[in-house]
């Protein structure tokens, strides 16, 4: 039937060109069915939903600028003598990798700009992913059906870290070479296989002649290829699940309220790509990043003070800095706990946050889909756990920069290190307790607002001289928004004795689950939200308190 209309319009020669191209494509790709589902797809609006966009756009910028850089970069460790236009390094021996990076920075017009955009975009990409991940965590957007997308995002973050690391190691400069040496030391600490992995990675002893070429193919092909796939999957799932939204009038678990992709989000999101790119370009114009010419080519016997990795590796750097130097020697072997424990902790700390959605869904036993976001205060234990995790991460960052902190604030490096050692344990506990108290207090305030209205700040004097503040009741929209969240009941272990008086064995898993559930939703761990009855009793004027 559509063929008939097509023929007709072609016969009259009146269909506009765009329409004819679309018809042509539809006949081969079926684009109309795809467009029907997606062209006017509704996206909810909230400022925090743009964090993921920042990541996507900076990733695209990294790919664009990265392709440009590959046109000039030589991933080789052959020694050459420098004869470029940067005078202070004239005649220096250096690897071709370092030499070509100098060439990009000083002799290719715009090369420095693209290099700096590439590096800045990488920092912003990682920072964006971190913040985006926290947004998803604290609003509970990882709950069913989005657990897999959470894992995709997590993998993007972890792979992003390693892509960044292999990238900044490519110029073979003194700073990044020091980081590679650190990586070699960390690999050597692995029991049994460490030495072998190190020799296979570096093609023999450190530094060898191979790692730049190997890191290059990992950095420009292997990891970004996987990441591109994950990102496409991430986006497909965002489309397929439809975006989450915050509670509010007209918003339910069964709908999505917002504005259509065409034209509003096409313009906003498309425009946002240019905004992100523009801002990064300006940063690259005015803010120097990784001036490898100031550090010089890598030599394993040289180093500079204040050596720092890029920020996203700072947490790992911190772990190795504040770990005591434990080493156990036995039967001709050495267990290098001082380096190996940080390596394991690095994986554990990241792994815990990756698995959190599954832990929480086990505790709640909730099998429903969730599309309405939680306000962080309404999930106090989750929020407190998230803050504890961020605290561990931040303590790691502080530890990774202990020398910078010591020199900038005129503190003793030993004191800073000891502070970090203690707060690695104490920080998350304090963070957890304080956050939970704040969440509960905010829940109480919401409850008061619903039941007693908003404090207007207007003081009224009563005939007998007493002063009172007028409270203004909330609108139904506000009442609904503040009471829309679901509150779980803590799980019970059920009867441990059956009707015949025979004791039932309670599995340890069930006990743990009941305990955790109580820690999440038990008395004192969440404030019961006001009920309609309470509200009516107060507002009807017959309340007795």
């Amino acid at each position: 039937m559509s063929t008939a209309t097509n023929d007709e319009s072609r016969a009259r020669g009146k269909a506009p060109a765009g329409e004819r191209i679309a018809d042509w494509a539809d006949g081969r790709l079926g684009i109309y069915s795809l467009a029907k589902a997606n062209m006017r797809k509704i996206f909810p609006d909230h400022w925090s939903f743009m964090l993921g966009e920042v990541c996507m756009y900076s990733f695209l910028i990294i790919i664009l600028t990265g392709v440009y850089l590959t046109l000039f970069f030589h991933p080789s460790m052959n020694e050459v003598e420098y004869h470029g236009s940067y005078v202070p390094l004239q005649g220096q021996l250096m690897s071709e990798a370092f030499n070509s990076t100098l060439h990009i920075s000083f002799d290719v017009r715009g090369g420095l700009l693209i290099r700096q955009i590439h590096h800045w975009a990488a920092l912003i990409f990682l920072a964006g992913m971190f913040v985006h991940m926290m947004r998803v965590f604290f609003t509970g957007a990882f709950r069913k059906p989005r657990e897999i997308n959470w894992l995709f995002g997590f993998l993007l973050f972890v792979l992003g870290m390693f892509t960044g690391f292999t990238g900044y190691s490519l110029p073979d400069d003194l700073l990044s070479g020091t980081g590679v040496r650190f990586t070699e030391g960390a690999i050597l600490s692995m029991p049994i296989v460490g030495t072998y992995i190190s020799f296979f990675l570096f093609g023999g002893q450190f530094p060898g002649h191979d790692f730049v070429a190997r890191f290059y193919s990992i950095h420009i092909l292997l990891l970004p290829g996987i990441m591109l796939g994950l990102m496409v999957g991430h986006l497909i799932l965002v489309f397929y699940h439809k975006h989450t939204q915050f509670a509010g009038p007209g918003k339910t678990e069964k709908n999505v309220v917002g504005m259509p992709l065409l034209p509003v989000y096409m313009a906003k999101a498309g425009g946002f790509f240019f905004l992100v790119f523009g801002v990064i370009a300006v940063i690259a114009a005015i803010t120097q990043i990784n001036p490898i010419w100031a550090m010089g080519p890598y030599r394993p016997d040289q180093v500079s003070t204040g050596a720092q990795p890029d920020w996203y590796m700072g947490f790992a750097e911190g772990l190795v800095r504040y770990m005591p130097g434990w080493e156990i020697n036995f039967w001709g072997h050495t267990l290098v706990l001082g380096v190996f424990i940080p390596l394991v902790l690095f994986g554990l700390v990241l792994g815990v946050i990756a698995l959190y959605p599954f832990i929480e869904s086990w505790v709640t036993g909730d099998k429903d889909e969730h599309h309405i976001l939680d306000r962080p205060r309404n999930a106090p234990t989750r929020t407190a756990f998230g803050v504890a995790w961020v605290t561990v991460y931040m303590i790691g960052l502080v530890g990774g920069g202990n020398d910078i902190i010591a020199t900038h604030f005129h503190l003793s490096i030993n004191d800073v290190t000891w502070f970090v050692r203690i707060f690695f344990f104490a920080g998350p506990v304090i963070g957890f307790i304080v956050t939970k108290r704040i969440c509960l207090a905010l829940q109480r305030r919401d409850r008061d607002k619903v039941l007693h209205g908003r404090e207007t700040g207007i003081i009224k004097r009563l005939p007998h001289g007493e002063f009172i503040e007028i409270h203004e009741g909330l609108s139904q929209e506000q009442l609904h928004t503040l009471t829309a969240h679901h509150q779980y009941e803590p799980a019970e272990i059920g009867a441990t004795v059956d009707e015949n008086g025979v004791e039932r064995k309670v599995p340890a898993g069930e006990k743990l689950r009941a305990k955790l559930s109580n820690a999440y939703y038990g008395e004192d761990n969440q404030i019961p939200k006001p009920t309609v009855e309470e509200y009516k009793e107060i507002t009807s004027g017959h309340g007795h308190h």
Partner: protein
Amino acid sequence: MPEENLPAAQDHPHGAVSVADEEHPFSDPGLPPHEHRIQDIDERAAKRSERVVALLFTISMLATVGFIVSYVTIPHDKSIFVFPIGHISALNFALGLTLGAALFCIGAGAVHWARTLMSDEEVASERHAISAPAEVRAQVHADFKQGAKESALGRRKLIRNTMFGALTLVPLSGVMLLRDLGPLPGTSLRHTLWAKGKLLVNMNTNQPLRPEDVVVGSLTFAKPEGLEEASEDFQNEIAKSALMIIRLQPKDIKDKRELDWAHDGIVAFSKICTHVGCPISLYEQQTHHVLCPCHQSTFDLSDGARVIFGPAGHALPQLRIGVNDEGYLEALGDFDEPVGPAFWERG
């Protein structure tokens, strides 16, 4: 709380705002009515927005022209002073700002267009359950069982087992191919270029060191004779054999072995940190401590280079040195333990 303070006792207990649904005050009142923007009602305001968007797009075009002009006209080695940044590359500055402006203005124009002129009416669209309805689920299960049955995979165990066997083994070829990524470690981590009779060569002057070249309070870096910067394996060898030489008053040396292995108070330690292999280079004259600038492991050079702070696990290896007949410092052998970071086979 006195009765009067309760909202119910006030004149307008709930101010001017009223709850539409008295029976279900917390129920969802539905989407609020759409509020028009000034551009929706006033065509002049809409025109103004249009002009702003067009202006932004125009600026972007001009900025691109500026980018091309800068690229062609500004020499790549010209530096300019920009307050408060300092002296920077003029070309990088001009290209970055023009490119940034060209991109940013496109974005700003598009967003302003979307915010002021495109419809901002919120609409609701329904969600559908992600999981399939029961009959679809049943159908898929049935189809799968049918397919599995037709394949006879479950019945013909011999095919199944050999297939799994073949599929398990075939990746081994890929693993095998990785073998030549590097040589096996062997004992290469245990040996350095140092050997009996090798002279200690000053890293900076490239001259063999004499005891009188090393004064109390100084820190000298040395390499074994014969190792030149231009040599093929310089990086690999210096990564293990880099040496740190200081002179102490023999009476200040607390460790007996250190004193035995020294020459007249001159001690030679590996420069490579035993933590993860950074070169150690921060020396405190008064305390004889050296600090690794990477992870702050601190070693006491007057006490066998033992670790006194930080994450390193063991002392820096010491090289036994003496003086040869011509009066030059020489090694009396290789290090007696592996230098650098610890590893499983170190023992």
